[in-house]
């Protein structure tokens, strides 16, 4: 019963945090410096790991596709397969997982530390709502940076696939044919669907991380616990939402 209460309380507080944060959206022009800082942290500092991961995901996809399609002499479709897999599924999901691990954990740790060491209480006594200063700029930053990261993941993954498709002995697919496959099979709608998924996942990650951080009570051990909780909840939610959002987007 207590567990259910806890889950409901977390859910409710997350919704309230979301509403309160967007209530302060009109103050964004006064907080450009914070927005830029969070865009830098969410986007620029996450980019290298997204680039490495998406390059190798594209490579492995091309390798697996080349190996499997060799038997049916359909290796010309490697580009289409890699392109679609990345655009519709792997780029948004893998980028979100990286953002959860890298950015979500950092945010929950920072806010949990501020809460435990009474910095959040200090803000409240100064009549500065924590949602305005600590949450809203981060939510807007993730909404700006997730599409950028996902598009980069798509492009780098496609290039990774092309490099492997051209250079592995048993595939040796011409780069032109590979990219023709992408051009012919990947539509603008596929890309947009992937970006919508990335936006939803990124938004949920930051909201959950902020909420878990701001609800932390206790000491150093609880700060560590909050970081773990934020990442675990985010990862589970990404996978669950992935099914429902994909399903919904297919029906639109």
């Amino acid at each position, binding site marked *: 019963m207590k567990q259910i209460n806890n889950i409901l309380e977390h859910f409710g507080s997350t919704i309230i945090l979301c509403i309160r944060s967007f209530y302060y959206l009109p103050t964004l022009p006064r907080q450009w410096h914070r927005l830029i800082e969070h865009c830098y942290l969410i986007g620029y500092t996450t980019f290298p790991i997204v680039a490495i991961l998406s390059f190798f995901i594209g490579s492995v996809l091309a390798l697996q596709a080349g190996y499997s399609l060799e038997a049916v002499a359909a290796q010309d479709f490697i580009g289409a397969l890699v392109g679609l897999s990345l655009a519709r599924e792997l780029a948004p999901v893998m980028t979100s997982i990286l953002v959860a691990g890298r950015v979500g954990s950092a945010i929950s740790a920072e806010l949990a530390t*501020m809460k435990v*060491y*009474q910095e959040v*209480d*200090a803000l409240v*006594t*100064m009549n*500065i709502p924590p949602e305005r200063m600590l949450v809203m700029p981060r939510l807007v930053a993730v909404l700006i940076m997730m599409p950028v990261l996902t598009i980069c993941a798509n492009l780098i993954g496609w290039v990774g696939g092309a490099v492997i498709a051209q250079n592995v002995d048993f595939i040796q697919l011409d780069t032109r044919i590979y990219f023709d496959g992408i051009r012919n099979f990947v539509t603008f709608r596929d890309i947009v669907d992937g970006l919508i998924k990335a936006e939803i996942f990124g938004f949920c990650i930051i909201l959950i991380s902020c909420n878990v951080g701001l609800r932390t009570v206790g000491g150093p051990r609880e700060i560590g616990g909050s970081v773990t909780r934020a990442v675990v909840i985010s990862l589970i939610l990404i996978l669950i939402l992935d099914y429902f959002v994909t399903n919904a987007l297919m029906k639109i």
Partner: protein
Amino acid sequence: MEIIERASIGLKVENFSKSYDSVKVLNDISIEVEPGEIFVIMGPSGSGKSVLLKHVAGLEIPNNGRILIDGKDISDPKTRTQVHMALIFQAGALFNSMSVFDNLALYPREHRLYNKKTLRGKVMKALETLSLEDAAEKFPSQLSGGMRKRVAIARALVMEPELILYDEPTSELDPTMGATISEIIADLRAEFGVTSLVVSHDRDLALTIADRVAILMDGDLLEVDTPENINKTENPRVKDFLNPVIDIKNPRFKKKEYSR
């Protein structure tokens, strides 16, 4: 340039009680602090002093009773914007990611109170008042305990408070620094007439600078009086708290009532 350009305000706690789950922390507390007064709440650790202060600051909601600041109920969200109050936390609660200057400038910047030049002047004046001008560009992690407390007080001054709440301002400090902080509290009242509610178990602070002292024990308010009268009290618990005798043969912690 004056640091505080506002009049001081009074504070009233009426029949205030607080429980956490089934544990009663404060029981029917009523106190009144006059404008410009230094009111010290003393009591042993765990007596509920800091809980009371958090409620006065509006960080928690009471179970029973109400807290009025300048006649306005603190549980009303509007009160926070109408009264200017600053809380100085026991550990300072400075923003660790900001320099001392930015810590002090945060409040006026967020509320867009001054232009850049005036803001710089106000912040530097507050730092000068507490002899901290050389620490402006330092980060909280580079400061000693005493400096952190002084920065916390300077941060409060920039807010131009009508009421300052101090949570254990002299704890974890050496005796000289403790005395310095007590002098600062008295000086701020003398210079700006600001009302001060101090929670402390520092007997020297209470008996030297307070106008009135309240003794809180186990959630009950035992006495409210001037420091002179409190010092002459006949209440054995208050006497023992103010002038504890170290009895090695019959230690307190082995007595049954100590477990309370």
